[in-house]
């Protein structure tokens, strides 16, 4: 598995900003930090404040956080996730555009990993956010209602859910997520996707 030191070297080479791992002294509205997670890498999209916020929070759980400039996963795949998965099928998570999840899911399938958690967050121009959890709500102990209740703190809540998610000890089967395509949204609305890809 890539060590933290190697990872930082890779990030330096690829020019991908790494959000430093280390304790974040913010007790969230939702729970107790720091949680520890076995998630190997967290991908965030630095165009979105919510995504950056999730990255900052998950850094405190020991996960390595990669901030991508957009939805293109190529560099993270080539330098971080591809090499890690060649060693073993480590879990990864993120709050990204749908197309980033789609690409990673496709690459994951041939290595026996599946999307085990999938949430969607529609950000409306008037500031409202609509949430749905399409997969893995129970194992992450989170519901769309929890996220709605968290209001503007929802990124903290989803970060905590991602960190808290535990795999079912019994092998589970998962089909494809529906990340390949984009749902129709009202003008100005944006969609962020929270996800975990893990061996099942």
């Amino acid at each position, binding site marked *: 598995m890539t060590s933290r030191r190697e990872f930082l070297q890779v990030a330096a080479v690829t*020019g991908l900003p790494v959000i430093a791992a280390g304790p974040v002294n913010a007790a969230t509205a939702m729970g107790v930090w720091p949680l520890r997670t076995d998630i190997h890498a967290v991908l965030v999209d630095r165009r979105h404040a919510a995504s950056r916020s999730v990255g900052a929070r998950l850094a405190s759980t020991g996960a390595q956080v990669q901030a991508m400039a*957009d*939805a*293109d*996963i*190529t560099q993270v*795949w*080539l330098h971080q996730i*591809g090499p890690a998965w060649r060693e073993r099928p480590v879990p990864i998570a993120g709050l990204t*555009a*749908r*197309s*980033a999840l*789609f*690409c990673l899911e*496709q*690459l994951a*399938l*041939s290595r026996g990993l599946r999307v085990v958690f999938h949430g969607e967050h529609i950000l409306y121009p008037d500031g409202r956010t609509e949430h749905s959890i399409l997969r893995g709500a129970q194992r992450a102990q989170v519901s769309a209602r929890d996220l709605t209740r968290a209001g503007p703190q929802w990124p903290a809540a989803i970060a905590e859910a991602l960190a808290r998610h535990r795999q079912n000890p019994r092998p589970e*089967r*998962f*089909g*494809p997520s*529906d990340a*390949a*395509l*984009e*749902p*129709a*949204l009202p*003008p*100005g609305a*944006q*969609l962020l996707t929270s996800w975990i890809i893990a061996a099942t």
Partner: protein
Amino acid sequence: MAIPPNVSPAAFNAALDAWRDAVGPEWVFTSEEDVALYRDAYSPFWGEPEERVASAAVAPATVEEVQAVVRAANEHRVPLYPISTGRNLAYGGSAPIYSGSVVLDLKRMNRVLEVNERNAYALVEPGVSYFDLYEHITKAGLDLWIDPPDPGWGSVIGNALDGGAGWTAYPFRDHFGAHCGMEVVLANGEIVRTGMGALPNSKSWQHSRWGYGPWVDGLFRQSNFGVVTKMGFWLMPRPEAMMSSMATSEREEDIIPMLDALNLLENQHVVNGSTQIFQGGRGPAGSAAWTIQVPIYGPEKVVRAQMDYAKAKFTAIPGVKFVEGELFRTPLTPEQLSRVRLVNFGIPNLSTFAMLGRNPGAPDPAGGHIGFSPIVPRTGESLLEFKRFYAENLPKVTNGENLGITGPVYMTCWERTLVCLIMFPIGRDKAMNAKMRHAFETWVRLAAERGWAEYRAPAVYQDLVADTYSFNNHALRRLRETLKDAIDPNGILSAGRYGVWPKHLRKT
């Protein structure tokens, strides 16, 4: 568990047992969730009865296992659909043409068997992706380039077998055209090596393409005559430099002499890069009617001399301006890499999906698409005719609605031709998908009336397009059917691929 059509549960179970013995039970997939992974995410029939779906999947890791799987399928008459990496999005994904076929998934056969720098070739297995081959070459420090298509995750073999193309220099970007020698498992389980590979202990399998006697490799392109388990490819030695200039003109009719100039330069092997022909945009003198990219790969001195020659040819056309582009010495610096289209430099990537997904430039995309890309002669007259044809028929094809169909994009994937790509967005809205299907089908028919046809088609339209190749009462199809019956008499391999059906499934 789904069962393939015309196969009894007992026969299917017997085949499954034989496969489990051959490849190990963990590599035979029958659960609904596992089989769903082989659905075509861009299917224009998603969730409708006509969607093409698999019944099961089996994933061998060696040629011997492929032979065992094929033999059992033949014995029990179970239809198979071989895929390499199965990422054939826009052309059917991993899903079979004939619903209920069992996907023969070759992803686990992922060894790069040889890369030879001195003679510039590679020999690979089906599961080797462009990413894998690139990494192998980069790690070994070899001075060779690969030619990836836009998505770098596809299979070097799968892409070539489907007639795919890339974005560097000719002849390497014609992926099937750049292959040299293959190994194929036939429907009876027998292994054939083509070209020089038929010589036991051959020393020149990837050196000489033609071998001895009738050349059969073409039978395995866009076909269902065998399972390809190895393939050789000629690679481009890393070019010292690449320079891409632009010729522009403000007058619509100038495209005629401009394409003549491009053809001459290409046929003289002066311009070897992949060109796109853009309409509109800003040229050196203001707004341009046409912009042609003029990319050249090679040694720096030669590239500069060839570019001078190209410039002379274009600027000899009254009104045409020529803007010299930046000369890139390879390997590129990180700064250069951050602003070029990586596939033009032989670097596989996935940025195309970030562009297709929701982004500031496309706030409401469907995400998926299928394409209709008729082949048109590379002349300005033909291009202008296609342009008129598109503009005149678009309202008819779409019933006057804005369906988000885009095009045509004019590309020069192969010598002497234009590929006129029209893209149809595909989503999960069944009513919208039905409109796209109507539009697609109408374009295919209208284009065929003008003597233009598609070079490659989405799985669900392979029959429709094959029907347009109907010279002399479908003589070509009948020839292919004769071959199919001889090579695969039980019709177990990829039934229906590119319009070739086995006898028992043929519509009379």
